[in-house]
């Protein structure tokens, strides 16, 4: 079954078309990357799919629920880790997680169990009592992903999860994301070629709000006739100019 099905999804701001008739299907359990340069429409696509902004045209169905007419049901099944690190700065790591548990209406016992589970999965044990604003960038991103997972989402949106991180922090976060693969449907936006190639089951290349190409990294390389994924990306993007 498709976890996500977008049909002619469009977003316009006055005269500017940011997402232009996007058609997309993402299978359950898949890690799907939206790859593109700045301004390609990746974040806007995520915002529409996660009901943070209303589409101007078209629709998308997340686990059968429309983002236009059934946003409440959609929100119950998704988690979002925004591009900006969206954490409560003066709360500790534990308090941030318990705060999100409380918002989702978990009992005290379930909060403890959920917090302990995510701390272990995301490797946050050694920073549990630390204020979130004092964490390194890598740990803040891990906390952000943990907070997105609190509601037990079936679909997880990761918007530029490794933006601004050093190479070691990025590698650690990739390991965390790999552990989630297969257990949850993930949509990841990135402009890092190696990230899309290393993590994704399939990649969608976006430019100027349109989906130019869709497939596995190998399929995209074959389509562009290139051995290198970055060269394939450049060729695909440029061939539409």
């Amino acid at each position, binding site marked *: 079954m498709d976890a996500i099905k977008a049909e002619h999804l469009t977003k316009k701001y006055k005269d500017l078309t940011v997402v232009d008739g996007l058609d997309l299907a993402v299978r359950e359990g898949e890690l799907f990357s939206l790859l593109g340069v700045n301004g390609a429409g990746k974040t806007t696509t995520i915002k529409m799919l996660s009901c943070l902004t209303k589409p101007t045209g078209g629709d998308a169905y997340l686990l059968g629920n429309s983002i236009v007419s059934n946003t409440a049901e959609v929100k119950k099944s998704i988690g979002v880790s*925004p591009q900006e690190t969206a954490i*409560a700065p003066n709360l500790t790591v534990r308090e941030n997680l318990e*705060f999100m548990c409380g918002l989702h209406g978990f009992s005290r016992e379930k909060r403890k169990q959920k917090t302990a589970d995510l701390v272990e999965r995301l490797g946050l044990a050694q920073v549990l009592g630390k204020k979130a604003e004092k964490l390194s960038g890598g740990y803040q991103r891990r906390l952000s992903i943990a907070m997105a997972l609190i509601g037990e989402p079936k679909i997880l949106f990761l918007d530029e999860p490794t933006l601004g991180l050093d190479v070691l922090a990025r590698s650690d976060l990739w390991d965390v994301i790999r552990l989630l693969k297969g257990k949850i449907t993930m949509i990841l936006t990135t402009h890092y070629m190696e990230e899309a190639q290393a993590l994704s089951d399939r990649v969608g290349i976006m430019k100027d709000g349109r989906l130019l190409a869709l497939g596995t990294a190998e399929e995209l390389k074959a389509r562009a006739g290139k051995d290198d994924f970055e060269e394939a990306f450049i060729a695909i993007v440029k061939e539409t100019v």
Partner: protein
Amino acid sequence: MRILIFSGRTAKEILRDPLNLGFGLGFPLVLIFLLSAIQANIPVSLFEIGSLTPGVTVFGLSFMTLFSATLLAKDRDSAFLQRLYTTPLSAPDFVFGYALPVLPIALAQGAVCYVAAILLGLPVTLTILYAVLFLCPVSLFFIALGLLFGSALGVKQVGGICGALLTNLTAWLSGVWFDLDLVGGIFRKIANVLPFVHAVEMERAVLNGDFSGIFPHVWWVLGYAAAAVALAVYFFLRQMKRQ
């Protein structure tokens, strides 16, 4: 239940910021002690404790606007608010969650000011308790302003508008430092149509046990509080829709 959880987070964010404690608590206390020390050395009754303390408590409440506006603006800028929009929180949860926890903080600030005043010789009477309670509508006005500015402005703008402009307006147009009649003219007229001097006069009347003296000032305070709340809710819902 969600309102309580969200309120708890708001309270922690505000109280754990050392600058907030410094400005929110330290600044009014410094003013009370400093101006009382000045009063002890001058022949005229300029900063008499019974008149000064209500003024300083109202002035101190202007920092509640800064605290709540800064928190909301930071949440918007950092996308934390966007994250919260994907949770089951409703619009009333947000509005009450940002506003409600600041009220006890505001009343506590006022109470601490009156305790300091007692140490400096303010007679202990039941009217002090009433004066703290009458800070509720004044607090609501300043808190609602915080929600309004936090919804409409960025973090840097909040610092300028709420931190500098509003605190100065509250100070100069409330009659805390000087009798507004000494300036008179257009200055007095402008002050009379704003809520600050009315809040101070209402507080002074309550502290003095002159409950008929709270009129018409209490109507000005309630009117401005109601308007601020309405505008705050409107601007918050508007930014929520935009985001």
